[in-house]
């Protein structure tokens, strides 16, 4: 092992030397002493053609040594370059992260400012695709940290990183037990549990929305809750909830009522 590295260098050097000899084989007739390094490279070439004189062998050895030193210098310079570039990259990465955090902080400050227009545009969640309808979040002012934490979790949902999103919502609920976005977080957590068929956890999440009877997420949550009960085998409870959704929200033309009607028709033969 101890001799492994020098041996490797030697092998590399030899192969490098050979290729050089091949390039210079045309002028191989002129065998000179080792005091001229570029010429004496051709000494190696003449050796490879078979005419091995003692003198040229010694010259080749000298050349080998010279090449070794050149190579070492070259490696050192390259190493220095790599180290410096590595450092530059690390600094740039850090700089980028710092810039981003700075920007993020400033944006959060802007969105948390009590200007109606600002907070409304920043706090509305984009439509989502899992069957429920787009929901606009309340426009009341929430803390900047809460908004950014909620948005971060929601972005994870959009990026389909469901495990991370779940963790983010759980943390969010712990950190902001009375937050403005708590009902939304509960709803999304329920969706995420449902996605991985953790029915009991999903049921608990959806059920907690009954603390917010006027919240916009409630019809969807009730519908999902019914679905969970149905999947858990509690058909009676599921049916009862579906009918509740239809009777409460059907008149208002809420999409949850439509979904409930379809679900009822498909799964429960009346």
């Amino acid at each position, binding site marked *: 092992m101890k001799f492994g590295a020098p041996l490797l260098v030697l092998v590399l050097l030899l192969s490098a030397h050979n290729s050089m000899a091949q390039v210079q084989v045309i002028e191989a007739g002129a065998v000179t002493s080792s005091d001229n390094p570029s010429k004496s490279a051709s000494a190696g070439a003449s050796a490879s053609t078979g005419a091995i004189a003692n003198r040229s062998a010694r010259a080749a050895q000298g050349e080998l040594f010279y090449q070794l030193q050149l190579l070492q210098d070259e490696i050192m310079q390259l*190493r*220095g370059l790599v*180290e410096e570039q590595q450092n530059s990259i690390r600094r740039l990465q850090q700089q980028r992260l710092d810039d981003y955090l700075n920007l993020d902080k400033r944006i959060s400050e802007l969105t948390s400012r009590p200007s109606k227009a600002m907070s409304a545009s920043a706090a509305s969640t984009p439509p989502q695709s899992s069957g429920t309808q787009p929901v606009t979040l309340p426009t009341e002012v929430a803390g900047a940290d809460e908004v950014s934490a909620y948005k971060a979790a929601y972005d994870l949902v959009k990026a389909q990183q469901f495990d991370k999103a779940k963790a983010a919502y759980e943390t969010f609920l712990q950190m902001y037990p009375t937050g403005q976005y708590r009902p939304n977080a509960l709803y999304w957590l329920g969706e995420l549990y449902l996605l991985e068929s953790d029915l009991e956890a999903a049921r608990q999440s959806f059920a907690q929305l009954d603390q917010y009877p006027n919240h916009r997420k409630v019809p969807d949550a009730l519908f999902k809750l019914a679905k969970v009960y149905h999947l858990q085998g509690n058909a009676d409870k599921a049916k009862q909830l579906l009918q509740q959704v239809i009777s409460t929200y059907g008149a208002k033309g809420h999409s949850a009522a439509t979904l409930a009607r379809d679900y009822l028709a498909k799964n429960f033969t009346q």
Partner: protein
Amino acid sequence: MKKLLVMFAVFCLWSTSAWSELTIEITQGVDNPTSIAVVPFLWQGSGPISEDLAGIVAADLHRSGQFKPLSRGDMLGLPHEQQEVFYRDWRALGVEYLLVGKIVQGSGDQPIQVQYELFDVLKQSRLLFKRTGGQVSQLRDIAHLISDEVYLQLTGIRGAFSTNILYISAKKLSGSNFSYRLVKADADGARSLLILESREPIVSPAWAPNGKEIAYVSFETGYPAIYRQHLASGKRKRLTHFKGLNSAPAWSPDGKSMAMVLSKDGNPEIYIMDLATEKLTRITNKFSIDTEPSWMPDGKSIIFTSNRGGKPQLYQYTLATGWIERLTFEGDYNARGRPLPDGQSIVFVHRNKGQFHIAVQDLAKGTIDVLTKTFLDESPSIAPNASMVMYATQRRGQGILAAVSIDGRVKFHLPSKYRDVREPAWSPF
């Protein structure tokens, strides 16, 4: 016979307790140093006393750059204890703190007893009241101890006035004949003590973490060899004497091993010697030069200088993993790295526009501060309380020692009257 006499004379000179080879010139202090009055201590014994305790304390505090002692000629009174202190007088002189004391003759193993008191003039309150004692030969130690206490009380930082330094001094005798000396002295340059004298170079003095042993490289056999020597007994042992380079010994923080540079296997590489067994482990293996090892305070990694990237730069070797990371990127020459006691920053020799200066780098942030404006600065060594860095530099063609505070605000020189001085090594506490 004549030679013997000379040797005897030299011996007498060296053994004089207050003899000092180095003098101190403070070249720069902080902008608003704290004003303190150190009143001459009252001596209540018989006969004259050999040291001016208050003078030593005042000089210590002055040297820190953070204090401006009141000159004795300006003092309106010379109190020695609390009852004699009139705060009004001192406030009129703009004095913020006042140190008074008295020395009495004791008995037994403490023939000298000192009582001292520190006052806050503005608040009119006593901050310190302490007694200490010792032998007549320990008067300077007592004075430095008082300086340490006062410094700690007023700055919150442990004082390093009681510590020692090692340095190498050289004098040209004739032609190519030099005399080299390895000297130990108090941190203020006083009480120099000759450890080793040789016609061949002595380099790289280093302290053991317990402050009781030192290591150095001596060429006395014609070739470099690393020695360790017990200070009190003077007993020494040759650790390495390999063909080629034997240099830069650096004791590990636990005192059990020593990093060093040997070129026995080809080119200079860093080795660690287990001091109990004297077994060597090679930790670098490159065709480049690896040298000047220095331990991080946690003992888990070693800082060294290497030209593996084409130019001398500092690298850090982690012992557990063998991972090597480059630390310095500013400038084309960074060498002789020494970590601060907290391990957060390193001090090193940095070349900027062709000039060699001492610089400090924050390891986490990577930012560097150049501390010195002198030329050809080398061999930085850090005080154990991290307040000052002592280094070697050139002035008017002569090698001198200089010191700079870690924030670069305080500077002083310690020129020798007769000799070139280099390679300071500051002792642990």
